[in-house]
């Protein structure tokens, strides 16, 4: 993948308030306490990994942020504004993009369309209905932007293919391309490297390091080498609770983490329990 000089740019106008702040969040599914008084924050420009065994509540945390599940109690603030109660489809405009553990590609749309649809910018209904020049212009801009992003991810050649005909590794890049199309300020990735080859994992790590200059990234992932390579901070969840939080080195050395998680065999990710 082509490297660009973006790593050197400094973030402009960085604010001291966190991008995402979760306070005492509790989510219950019937008798299951999926999240138990979880508090965490993600600051601007940070790459934060959320790790923990299967069923720890990682996906549920993302679902609560995105409005797919209703927390029993607690608070989620995004850039200082309360986020709870916001309909999922409004998040994209607020600058939050998320990939699903189950990918969520639309099989009936080409790769190109799958990516274009990720943009917050789209021609209006009337302008599309009448095929006004403005709709053609916006569509052309979106197509060229999608093409750039696909190119940056090394999959421009698949633009006109349909996603389910493609190798899994390509599908995972398409879904990241869709999220990037929205130019988010907070990117939530749910298990982005599960099922990828070692080479693909390295490339994705490189990409995330580039992205950090433009957005903060929260990654749920099992793959520890990947997590250690990309994160500024790691948050460890276990049975719905935050049991540790710190730099990759601190987490590696934390005895509690070792017994709860790292000491065990790394569980293989299962098919999703997304939204």
């Amino acid at each position, binding site marked *: 993948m082509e490297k660009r000089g973006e790593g050197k740019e400094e973030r402009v106008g960085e604010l001291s308030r966190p991008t995402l702040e979760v306070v005492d969040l509790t989510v219950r599914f019937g008798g299951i306490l999926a999240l138990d008084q979880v508090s965490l924050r993600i600051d601007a420009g940070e790459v934060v990994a959320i790790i923990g065994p299967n069923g720890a509540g990682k996906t549920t945390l993302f679902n609560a942020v995105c409005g797919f599940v209703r927390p029993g109690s607690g608070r989620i603030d995004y850039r200082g504004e309360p986020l709870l109660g916001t309909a999922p*489809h409004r998040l994209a405009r607020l600058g939050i993009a998320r990939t699903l553990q189950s990918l969520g*590609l*639309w099989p009936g749309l*080409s790769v190109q369309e799958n990516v274009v649809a990720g943009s917050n910018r789209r021609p209006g209904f009337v302008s*599309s*209905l009448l095929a006004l020049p403005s709709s*053609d212009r916006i569509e052309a801009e979106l197509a060229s932007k999608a093409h750039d992003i696909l190119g940056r991810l090394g999959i421009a050649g698949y633009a006109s293919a349909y996603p389910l005909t493609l190798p899994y590794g390509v599908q995972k890049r398409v879904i990241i391309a869709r999220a990037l199309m929205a130019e988010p300020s907070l990117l939530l990735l749910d298990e982005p490297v599960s099922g990828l080859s070692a080479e693909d994992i390295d490339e994705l790590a490189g990409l995330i390091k580039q992205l950090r200059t433009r957005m903060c990234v929260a990654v749920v992932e099992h793959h520890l080498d990947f997590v250690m390579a990309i994160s500024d901070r790691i948050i460890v969840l276990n049975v719905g609770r935050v049991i540790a939080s710190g730099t990759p080195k601190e987490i590696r050395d934390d005895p509690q983490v070792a017994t709860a998680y790292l000491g065990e065999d790394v569980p293989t990710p299962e098919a999703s329990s997304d*939204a």
Partner: protein
Amino acid sequence: MVAVRSRADRLVASTLRRHLLIALGAAVVLLLLSAQIGAYDDYNLTAVAIFAVAAAGLTLLTGLNGQLSLGHGALMAIGAYTTSLLLKDHRQLPVIVVLLISVVSAGVIGIAFGYAAARLRGPYLAGATLTLAVALPQVATRYKSIFGGESGLTVPPSAPPDWLGADFPPERWLAWIAVAAAVVTMLLLANLLRSAPGRAFKAVRDNEAAAALAGIDVARTQVLAFVISAACAGLAGALFAYWSGITSPAGFSLSLSLQLITAIVIGGLGSLAGAVWGSIVLVFVPLLTSGLASSVHLPSAVADNLPLAIYGGILVIAMLVAPHGIQGALRRILAIGRARREHTPGGGQKGVVDWDDPAPGT
């Protein structure tokens, strides 16, 4: 050669111009055709155009947005009754005004049903729309003084304008109206499907959670699809009223709704061209089968049921031979031809967004 090519490219570079060219071409061919054929075939051409309008709306809802409606016959009835009631009191109202009011009235009813439908999924939605199909004709029977009960309302034909001459056949005039309505409908739908709304419809059909995360308002998209689809059904119903000359509950039974579903499946689910193929099948196959049945001499008990049996048989065979419908089969044949010519199997054009491509594997 290059200069010619680039001028041609520029001419079709705009979506509107490209779609207008196709629409005008289709309209001219059909109008010329209508002048060559007799009154009976003009009558059948009108029927194809009417079903094509309804089927195009239904394929948008069911094929592209994934909402199964078994009640589209009832939505056609709303258009037809609106037209009939308008003409009962205002005989002289211009056709275009009558059609537009019928479109709006079906669209407004579509908003109400769309909101209900957006809360329902799969079998529940099918059940609700089925109820609509069964219940709505009952309203006409119940409120006899307004809707004319079982015998219905008669619809005065639309007289051809004077400039066409005194002896211009009314069947041909109606065919022109229906063809024009169908072409405009296809043009507008094709525009929508080429752009963001088309993507939103399919995205919601394929994965609602992912659509919401991409900023698409799922419920609003579903209501929108329902309203557009209902408006198309209303237009088809209004034309149907002119075409049949009478609007009665029997004309809008459940079987009409099921025929429309058959048409879009046979034609190729989710494709506008497929809606047209399906409508042609819907109109001409029964004519063909009843012709066949009457040509062999059989006891009437058998002969009466033969057309339906043959019709059913043809549909079953069609689905086995072409599971993606007629349009899907044509697309495959064209793709094989193209690959042979270019020696590039599969082939991947860049940036080509095929607006009426049904989902592969759906």
